[in-house]
């Protein structure tokens, strides 16, 4: 037991001091800022060394060398002895830390080099072919690309490790090698301190980082200790990002936002956390200029705060998310962006092909260009015009599921694929096809989508797109003004004065309120009909008067065996209008021109007059029925709040 105590305390101390291992490296060598002719190798030691990098195209013959004169040495402020530039001192690294940043230049493009770190003549990294790097292809040249996307990973916990391991095993199995790694932020919880970076990022991903450049975007957790305005903090100590267009694109003048090229692919990285996101801000101005300049064939943007999400965060309610959607997305789409990766919200959400979804709250009407699943083996890839064409469709991917606890608030209507589990995204681009795969922490593929570019494609927004709540395309109902005379009844499936669950509130119920899966146990119960005024209601809802216009009702029912579906119909007494659903599918719309719930438009006036009208089930209503238990859900609408009466009294019949 005592041994266990010692281990725990020792472990606790090692975490708190930010130490990673016992060898000479306090951060093992990792790659940064690659171009078609150069790369940076960065590492840290706890002691003074004479830094040398040997490299070459043959792992057994590292015939090139750069010495300390070309390697930048950085130390903590209190360690400065005047031999290094104080402006480059490390922010909060442990005392005695030395960070070395070696820039190797004059390299061949698209070529693999092996390397090793030396202290004078003493080799510090093992002779191991995994210590290698590959330079980028020349900008504008054709070259396949394969990269890894991770967000919100930095817990240092088991799930983060499993996500990393799943990616490595998958690549090993498929014989694939990453060309780069993009991190959409929150890589070092809780505050992005130097120690958290060492433990929860560098130590965790060490075997990947030694041969793959991580191009990072800053998350809000890194933002607690690092500032985009001045480029100071542990995040900026960890990464070497382009400031003056070292890797393509246009110079931003700061590491917080930048762009880089890989062959015919242009990447744009933004700081959505702590910089001005308005159109007049320096970042948006830079973005506009950068988009105007690039001649790439693929355009990929990434940043931390998602413009569209209902995961652990809500993009309809939070400042940074709203601003990225309202100010930055119009610019990106006007520049022809193909795909946007984000994090922050701890979930995997992947959209349909969208354009122009800048409104708050986000709606799917008028913004979905292709509502298929994008899966090459399903509905087929999303098709776009060749090259970069403004407003030709974007896929949004929220990849905030890289290691931390995942959760979901609701359903973002533009999304096609949603998974509340840890994982990461692997993306390949080959010629005119981009393919994305969501790999979960157990190594299972949970989502696959593709974008294919060919010819000229002109998209029009889909009027009634696929609905992520019901998982179906909506069956659009035309509004009708009234029903028919009630026919002779063989059987009442739901009779008059039956008990229903009802919901009356200023807020709308959850969006899946009309589906079978929804649990209405918290709703009030009452006997039909419902309403106020005219003395024709069993459940009187006086609180509705002058306050609410909409009442939501739910009731389950089972169909008698051997029933002739064509004889089923609704018989309703109503004042003023209503929409009926079977198992989440709209089957009938009476006196309401468009919209649902709080968003209905043009509600007609209609008096119940103590009479019932008959609405036979059409083919779509019949299709919506299930064999066992069904849910009939009805939203009753009053013409206006100040109306003197309201009634909804639905029944379900089987006619003779």
């Amino acid at each position: 037991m005592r041994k266990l105590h010692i281990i725990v305390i020792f472990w606790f101390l090692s975490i708190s001091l930010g130490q990673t291992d016992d060898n000479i490296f306090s951060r093992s060598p990792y790659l940064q800022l690659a171009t078609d002719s150069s790369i940076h190798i960065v590492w840290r030691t706890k002691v003074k060394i004479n830094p040398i990098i040997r490299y070459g195209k043959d792992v057994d013959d590292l015939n090139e060398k750069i010495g300390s004169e070309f390697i930048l040495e950085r130390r903590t402020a209190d360690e400065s002895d005047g031999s290094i530039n104080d402006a480059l001192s490390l922010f909060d690294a442990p005392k005695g830390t030395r960070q070395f940043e070696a820039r190797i230049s004059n390299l061949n493009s698209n070529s693999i080099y092996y390397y090793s770190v030396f202290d004078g003549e003493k080799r510090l990294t093992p002779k191991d072919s995994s210590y290698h790097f590959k330079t980028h292809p020349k900008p504008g040249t054709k070259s396949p690309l394969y990269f890894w996307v991770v967000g919100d990973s930095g817990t240092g916990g088991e799930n983060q490790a499993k996500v990393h391991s799943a990616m490595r095993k998958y690549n090993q199995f498929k014989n694939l090698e990453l060309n780069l790694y993009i991190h959409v932020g929150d890589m070092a919880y809780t505050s992005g301190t130097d120690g958290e970076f060492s433990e929860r990022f560098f130590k965790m991903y060490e075997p990947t980082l030694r041969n793959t450049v991580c191009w990072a975007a800053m998350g809000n957790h890194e933002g607690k200790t690092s500032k985009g305005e001045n480029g100071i903090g542990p995040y900026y100590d960890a990464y070497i990002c382009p400031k003056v267009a070292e890797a393509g694109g246009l110079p931003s003048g700061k590491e917080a936002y930048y762009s880089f090229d890989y062959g015919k692919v242009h990447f744009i990285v933004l700081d959505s956390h702590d910089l001005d996101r308005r159109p007049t801000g320096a970042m948006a101005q830079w973005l506009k200029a950068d988009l105007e300049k690039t001649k790439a064939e693929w355009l990929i943007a990434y940043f931390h705060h998602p413009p569209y999400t209902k995961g652990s965060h809500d993009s309809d309610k939070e400042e940074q998310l709203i601003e990225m959607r309202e100010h930055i997305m119009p610019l990106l789409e006007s520049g022809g962006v193909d795909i946007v990766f984000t994090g922050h919200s701890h979930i995997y959400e992947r959209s349909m092909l969208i354009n122009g979804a800048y409104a708050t709250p986000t709606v799917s009407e008028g913004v979905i260009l292709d509502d298929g699943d994008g899966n090459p083996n399903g509905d087929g890839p999303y098709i776009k015009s060749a090259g970069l064409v403004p407003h030709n469709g974007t896929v949004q991917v929220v990849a905030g599921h890289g290691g931390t606890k995942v959760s979901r608030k609701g359903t973002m209507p533009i999304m096609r694929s949603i998974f509340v589990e840890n994982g990461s995204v692997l993306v390949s681009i080959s010629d005119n096809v981009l393919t994305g795969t969501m790999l979960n922490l157990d190594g299972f593929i949970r989502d696959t989508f593709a974008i294919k570019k060919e010819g000229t494609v002109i998209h029009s927004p889909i009027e009634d797109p696929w609905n992520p709540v019901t998982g179906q395309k909506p069956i659009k109902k035309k509004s009708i003004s009234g029903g028919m005379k009630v026919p002779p009844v063989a059987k009442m499936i739901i009779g008059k004065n039956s008990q229903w669950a009802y919901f009356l509130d200023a807020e709308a119920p959850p969006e899946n309120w009309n589906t079978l899966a929804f649990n209405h146990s918290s709703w009030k119960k009452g006997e039909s009909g419902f309403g106020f005024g005219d003395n024709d209601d069993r459940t009187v809802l006086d609180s509705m008067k002058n306050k609410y216009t909409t009442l939501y009702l739910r009731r389950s029912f089972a169909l008698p065996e051997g029933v002739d579906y064509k004889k089923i119909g609704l018989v309703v007494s109503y004042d003023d209008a209503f929409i009926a659903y079977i198992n989440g599918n709209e089957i009938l719309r009476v006196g309401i021109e468009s919209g649902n719930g709080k968003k209905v438009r043009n509600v007609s006036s209609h008096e119940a007059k103590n009479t019932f009208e008959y609405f036979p089930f059409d083919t779509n209503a019949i299709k919506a029925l299930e064999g066992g238990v069904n849910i009939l859900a009805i939203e009753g609408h009053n013409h206006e709040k100040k109306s003197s009466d309201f009634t909804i009294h639905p029944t379900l019949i089987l006619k003779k």
Partner: protein
Amino acid sequence: MHKKLFRLHLFSALLFVMFASHATSHHDTKALIEQLTKRINSGESTAENYYKRAIEYRVLGQLEEAENDLKIALKHNANFTLARREITRILSKKSRHKLAILSAEQVITNAITQREKSSAMILLAQMLFNAGEPLEAIKYSSTAFKLNPNGKVEWYLLHARLLGEIKRNNERPEILRTGYQLTGSIVLRNAWIDSLLDCKQYETALPIIEKELISSRLKSSWKLRRAKAYIGTGKINAAMNDLRTCLKELDQRIHPKNPAMTLIADRGLANALLGNIGTAKNDLARLIHIGADKWITIPLEQAINLIEDQ
């Protein structure tokens, strides 16, 4: 005794682990507010906790609650610079400019290093500018540059804008050029070119514009700039051609229902210079309607007035 000590250490270590995992698992903004409220109500009413909660309130757009928390944080610790900066920005956002200025002055008082002082000066300059006092604001932005000659991209943009506000346009090219040289920022380079055009220094601007036109994929911004230079040098037909092709490209780039603000401004300006005043005025009205910054609307407004006067 030893056993007790070990247990204490073990307990502390486990507490740390629990706290760490707890802290990392709460990233839902509302949940975080609830968590911080619980902490505050259970005795942890520290400046840091009030500050953290204020940030989350701000994210949700609840500025009143954010301001209240920041006031309490500052009562606990008057030298809490992050809280002071945050409340300054919130006050300005709520158009309570006098209080924002006083708050920014306090940030300067609390600043210790040259870096902190210069950054605080810029904050005050921004607050004074927001309050409509550009003449006063420029004193502070100038001092910031004296304290930190390298400056930041945003500082140069603000300073140049202030020079424009106080009608010292002829000084803008120099400060923007310096900023571009020191930072490499393309935003400053482009702002420098715009300032050259405003100061009628067409000979310096035109060669750069021509180069950009060759190397850019989307050319409307550069066509617009070249048209201004052509108008300035009397090449009216060439200018009109540029403006027409600029509009053609903008038609493709501008979303018909939800256009990007800066692209509407470009379209409005191109239309104004082409003499399509009605269309230009529509774009100006739209920009004002969607809350565009003065920096975007003023050049368009000026162009419309100029054409109308002619």
